């Protein structure tokens, strides 16, 4: 198990390295540069050149990349030119916020996705199944940024039950209760699509398992239906659902970009959007690296969980 874990981690290194090259090339290829972005209307060739020199952007691309890589290997992510602070400080601070949001969303979508899937499968073609399937379909189809605005309108503007945006109250607040109040709307919004996907797959996997002979055997043995479903069917179905949860974790991280913008959540998705629009290469690199590394890690965790659950994969 440990060998497998280490092998997977080692495999992630070239993936991450390749990613930095790709991001670097994309940022170099898209038109516009940081100096133009900073100077805006005042971007004369002369001003741009002077600013580029001050920002250290007058070197060739390979030179810039190698300098960045050499610094990175020493643990230095560089300094963001749009924010004028070390990249690593900004990235970690923002990633922490995203983890809280994505973690809450992942918890919600896993719990509700699994429950909805199981209920649907057990009551196949019954009313419960139809209602759940209907809501699952709506959840999957709804654009999440729109749902977010709708929730803000209802719960924050009209009912005034929850704050419309931010992570903590601007004045006072700052404790756990304050965080939870701010977390409810964005986490629910972010979880909706993934809940639908997990529910559908759980339903399909459960239906598949419920048709198996050993389930009939279990029922014939006189086990309670509850025990049949949770102990026998669900555990088997979970094996095929877990990798999907791992993938959904990636989607939740990606979806956080919109949700963070709508709810002004100070996370890494919003940071990346700003970094790209100001052509802040080092900040983009740092942000992408951290997100990609966590994506790799989530999938690895899902695989490990699958290993632990699936007797066929045990060696």
């Amino acid at each position, binding site marked *: 198990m440990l060998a497998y874990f280490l092998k997977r981690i080692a495999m992630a290194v070239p993936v991450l390295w390749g990613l930095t090259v790709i991001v670097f090339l994309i940022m170099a290829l898209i038109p516009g540069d940081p100096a*133009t972005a900073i100077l805006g209307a005042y971007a004369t060739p002369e001003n741009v050149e002077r600013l580029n020199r001050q920002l250290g952007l007058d070197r060739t691309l390979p030179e810039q990349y190698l300098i960045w890589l050499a610094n990175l290997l020493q643990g230095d992510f560089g300094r963001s030119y749009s924010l004028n602070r070390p990249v690593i400080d900004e990235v970690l601070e923002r990633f922490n916020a995203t983890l809280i949001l994505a973690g809450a969303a992942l918890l919600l979508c896993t719990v509700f996705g699994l429950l909805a899937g199981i209920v649907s499968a057990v009551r196949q073609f019954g009313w419960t199944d139809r209602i759940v399937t209907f809501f699952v379909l709506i959840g999957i189809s709804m654009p999440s940024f729109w749902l977010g605005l709708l929730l803000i309108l209802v719960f924050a503007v009209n009912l005034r039950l929850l704050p419309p945006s931010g992570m903590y109250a601007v004045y006072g607040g700052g404790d756990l209760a304050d965080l939870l109040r701010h977390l409810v709307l964005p986490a629910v919004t972010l979880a909706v699509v993934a809940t639908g996907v997990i529910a559908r797959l759980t339903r399909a996997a459960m239906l598949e398992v419920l048709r198996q002979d050993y389930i009939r055997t279990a029922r014939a043995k006189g086990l309670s239906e509850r025990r049949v479903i949770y102990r026998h069917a669900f555990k088997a179905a979970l094996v095929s659902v877990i990798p999907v949860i791992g993938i959904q974790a990636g989607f939740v991280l990606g979806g956080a970009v919109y949700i963070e913008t709508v709810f002004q959540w100070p996370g890494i998705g919003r940071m990346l959007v700003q970094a790209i629009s100001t052509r802040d290469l080092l900040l983009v690199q740092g942000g992408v690296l951290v997100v990609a590394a966590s994506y790799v890690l989530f999938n690895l965790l899902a695989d490990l969980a699958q290993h632990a659950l699936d007797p066929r994969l045990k060696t």
Partner: protein
Amino acid sequence: MTGISRALKGALAALAMAGFAVSGLQPAAAQTPPNVLIVGQIAEPKSLDPHAVTAVNDFRILMNVYDGLVRYRDGTLEVEPALATGWDISEDGKTYTFRLRQGVTFHDGSPFNAEAVKFNFDRMLDENHPYHDTGPFPLAFFFSAVEAVTVEDEHTVTFTLNEPYAPFLSNLAYPTGLIVSPAAVEEHGKDFGRHPSGTGPFRFVEWQSNTRVVVERNPDYWDGAPALEAVVFRPITDANTRVAEMLAGGIDLMVEVPPDNIARFAEDPAFKVHEQAGPHVWFLILNMKEPPFDKKAARQAVNYAINKQALVENVLQGTAEIAAGPTPPAFAWAYNEALEPYPHDPQKARELLEEAGYNGEEVVFYVTEGGSGMLDPVAMGTAIQADLAAVGMNVKIETYEWNTFLGEVNPGLEGKADMAEMAWMTNDPDTLPYLTLRTDAFPENGGFNSGYYSNPEVDTILEQARQATEQEERAALYKQMQEIVHEDAPWAFVANWKQNAVSTARVENFDLQPSFFLLLKDVAKP
């Protein structure tokens, strides 16, 4: 089985309860505390070092933390004393001697004096200054005419310019001319932008990334302590979310309200809508090097063809006024009141196009997707395309993202496009025409004259205006320039943006400034 659906229902109920429980079962009747003003900003500031930033959004905070040697008089774009109590300008317009206000200290306790002034400008302009590396200072070229800053005595400082440069005073009133504490720069170095210290009405308290910037009352302010105890600036990038926060009571004041929402706030007595025309002009650059716009008749035709009334009323929903010429009316002292906008006259436009020999050739029109001061560029571009089609012009729109757009437009339109959208906001009536309408400002000379307008008379007038130090003399020259440019029509003059803001009814004494700065010293919120 019932167990499962019970579990599902239970979980749903728990989630719903959680939402209510954490909100304390009370509607979060968001009332912001008295004497604390919460301002909804459009973005996180980049830095609180006034010499390092370029965005109006950042200036809104900085103008309340720092002072310059001079400032704009309330409600105008005319310069009045601030940290300097007075000044003398030499006959040749090259030497400015400032008498400094005495007894002023920076928020960190260090004294404001002539040495501090010298430090500020040397840091920006002298590459060998020990703290030049705390930059970059992208707008330092505002002061590129400054050759030397000399300390005469503790409270007298002299600026020597390499040429007469009339906009110098109003550039000093711009945020790039704000005075920072040398002691704080020395202490924090590159991180000064996160530990700002000035002499302004509010002192910096904290900056929590992406959450808030807090400043508090400076009780010792030389111009009288402000009424508010504190101001909190909150970055809310999404305009819809900003509106939602305003409606939910989470902020007291928001700027750049989307036009669609203005009516809603105006009808509600709980809110006040503020409007103020600023030094902004939105126009089309016409490429004068190539047909059809090498002919004056064709350029005037575009000006007659565009229905500016419909643009400002329908597309911009009243958030702008029709522009008559190249200078915004906000520069009241330099604005030519006699100038009338080109009327919407499609018949006249058709005649002029015929006179110019235009025969339905394709006209390439660069449109941007967004960008500073560009208002609603895609909708405006499309409306203009339709207006021009109505008089027989075959306009092809090419749309670019803002940075790409600038990269295409700034080097000049020759061989690429016939028209391009553009907007400028400046602090002096000199800046825009000097950078965009002179022969010496062609892109190859490092200027922004992307449409290649060249009129020796205008060149002479603008040079003279720069050398004149008397405001009346400058005003007369700018008025003359506006008349000529209006007639030559190197641009299609479209709109002057009115800045807007919405506050709650509790906010008192708040006025938007023509400079687009946000000045909060006299604002109260009992």
